[in-house]
């Protein structure tokens, strides 16, 4: 964490400073997308509460810097293309 | 300091009469306050309004309990409210009443200095409506000599505009001429 700046009225003058907080470190399970199974329905993209799923050239790309591993994308995928895998097992 | 209480009914302009006196006081280089009895306004209900006039800045902020002068806009109020309540000894009462009521008025107001004028007739003649406040201000001026006629003319032109102001100035002037001390 960066050092707290005590501004008048607690305003934060640097826009988007919340990006510094890499919430991907909170993750226990990692969503892993099987691009071969993906049908491109975009449900994972629409349902991700943190905006961590983005359209990519083939299928979708998950931003692991910020993905907290909530599993909503895997739950809504109609073809089970996303698997939640324990982080330790990924190493 | 002179303390004045004005009795009227909702719609007769008691509050405006107090305001005209306060504005006129300033025109004569005096300090003033004008305020309504703080409450809910209802047309036709008995209404009181107050004014203070002084050569010095007025600090007191309470209501008026021992008035020097009373102005009664409607003689029928005398059977509803005690219009002389708290009035100082030898205090002044200026009342709107037609001449044939003057004996009755005197009987009810014995012990006070009483001036009367038929302000309803003046208001109907000059304004076309029975709003007697400005006529009664004119009568009060003559009776009390607290303020000048010029100051009141000016105050009426501040409070009203155009033709309505001029009609009210005429009502003031006529009542000033026609008011009489009754004994």
């Amino acid at each position, binding site marked *: 964490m960066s050092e707290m700046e005590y501004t008048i009225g607690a305003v934060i003058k640097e826009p988007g400073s919340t990006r510094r907080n890499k919430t991907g470190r909170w993750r226990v399970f990692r969503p892993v997308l099987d691009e071969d199974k993906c049908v491109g329905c975009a449900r994972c993209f629409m349902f991700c509460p943190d905006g961590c799923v983005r359209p990519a050239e083939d299928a979708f790309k998950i931003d692991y810097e910020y993905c907290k591993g909530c599993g909503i994308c895997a739950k809504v995928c109609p073809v089970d293309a996303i698997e939640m895998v324990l982080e330790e097992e990924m190493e | 300091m002179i303390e004045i209480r004005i009795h009227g009914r909702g719609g007769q302009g008691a509050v405006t009469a107090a305001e005209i006196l306060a504005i006129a006081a300033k025109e004569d280089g005096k300090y003033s306050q004008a305020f309504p009895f703080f409450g809910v306004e209802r047309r036709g209900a008995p209404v009181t309004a107050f004014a203070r006039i002084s050569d010095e800045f007025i600090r007191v902020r*309470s209501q008026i309990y021992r008035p020097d002068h009373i102005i009664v806009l409607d003689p029928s109020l005398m059977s509803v409210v005690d219009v002389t309540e708290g009035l100082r000894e030898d205090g002044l009462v200026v009342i709107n009443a037609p001449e044939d009521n003057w004996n009755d008025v005197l009987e009810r107001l014995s012990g006070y200095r009483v001036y009367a004028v038929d302000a309803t007739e003046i208001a109907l003649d000059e304004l076309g409506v029975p709003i007697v406040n400005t006529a009664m201000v004119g009568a009060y001026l003559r009776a009390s000599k607290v303020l000048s006629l010029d100051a009141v003319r000016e105050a009426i032109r501040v409070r009203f505009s155009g033709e309505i102001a001029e009609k009210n100035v005429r009502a003031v002037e006529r009542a000033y001429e026609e008011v009489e001390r009754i004994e």
Partner: protein
Amino acid sequence: MTELGPDVRVINGNYAAAEAVRLVDVDVIAAYPITPQTPIVEYLSEFIANGELDAEFIHVESEHSAISAVVGASATGVRVFTATASQGLALMHEVLFIASGLRLPIVMAVANRALSAPINIWCDHSDTVAQRDTCWIQLYCESNQEILDTIIQAYRIAEHEDVLLPVMVCFDGFTLSHTLEPVAIPDEERVREFVGEFEPVHCRLDPEEPMTIGPVGGPDCYMEFKKMQHEAMERAREVIGEVNREFSDAFGRSYGDGLVEEYNTEDADYIVIAMGSVCGTVKHVIDEERPDVGLVRVKAYRPFPGDRIAEIIQDREGVVTIDRTHSYGAMPPLWTDVKAHAPDVEVSSTIAGLGGRDVRPEDVLRAIKVAEEGKGTDEPVWINVNV
């Protein structure tokens, strides 16, 4: 005190408030009408409709929305105004903390009025005193002239870079709001010169230079921001005094040292401590029949000038506070604040004028008598009450 001259108009307290807002040239107004403040909203709407004031009037459906709208508008970096009373102020309560927490220089007029139940539209101080811990500066007025002058000064105080806190200008409902008296209207150009252009210091919503306003502040930092508010409130003492002096230089009128006004205190045996229009009646009583009594008028209730008051009330025969509100189950608020700074001084407590009960000269004399008799030191004495 108002000097009679060509610049004087005979106006009521609500008009004096609206006129001050026009003179300052406020940019955004959001307010919801409530007796006895309603005419302020009407006068300001008229000024805008007549082209006498170039401001945006945001029509809202409640006081909660009114204060929320001025918080938002103030955050964009413009001068704002709102006004309310009684239940309306109570409805604003939660947003008052947001306004001060965001350090927005909002100015609000309050025509003091009691709270229900029973339903009551008349004056006391239970509405504003109940908001004393919201970190708003609170200034109480004694005359219509002071309402106009204080609203002008309030913008300078609120916007000062050492302060940046909202200001509540409080004046008694009906006793001032609906009473006409002479008020000197200062020259528009000179008022604008006095208040200057508003330059936002810390907060301005601007898409070109984005910033975050109103973020979360957890246990790791919330206390620091609150202590900063406390320090700003402390610095406001100096600024209020400075603005009062500058106002005096520019317009020839001042109100004590800006926080406390003393009247006949120098050799007085007894001291009355009070706030608002009742102080006029206290001065009247001193002039007419009690030259041995002095008045300490608390103009700034927050920040509370406790040290100064403690200094003034030392070595007197008696001291009495008149509270126009109560803290039920404890001693009244003004008494408590005074005692906190003067624990060694015996101070009597009275409660008067709740819900518009008139405070007459004889009631002031009664309060002085309470001090003479040394009563009311551990329980308030209720003045002119039938139970």
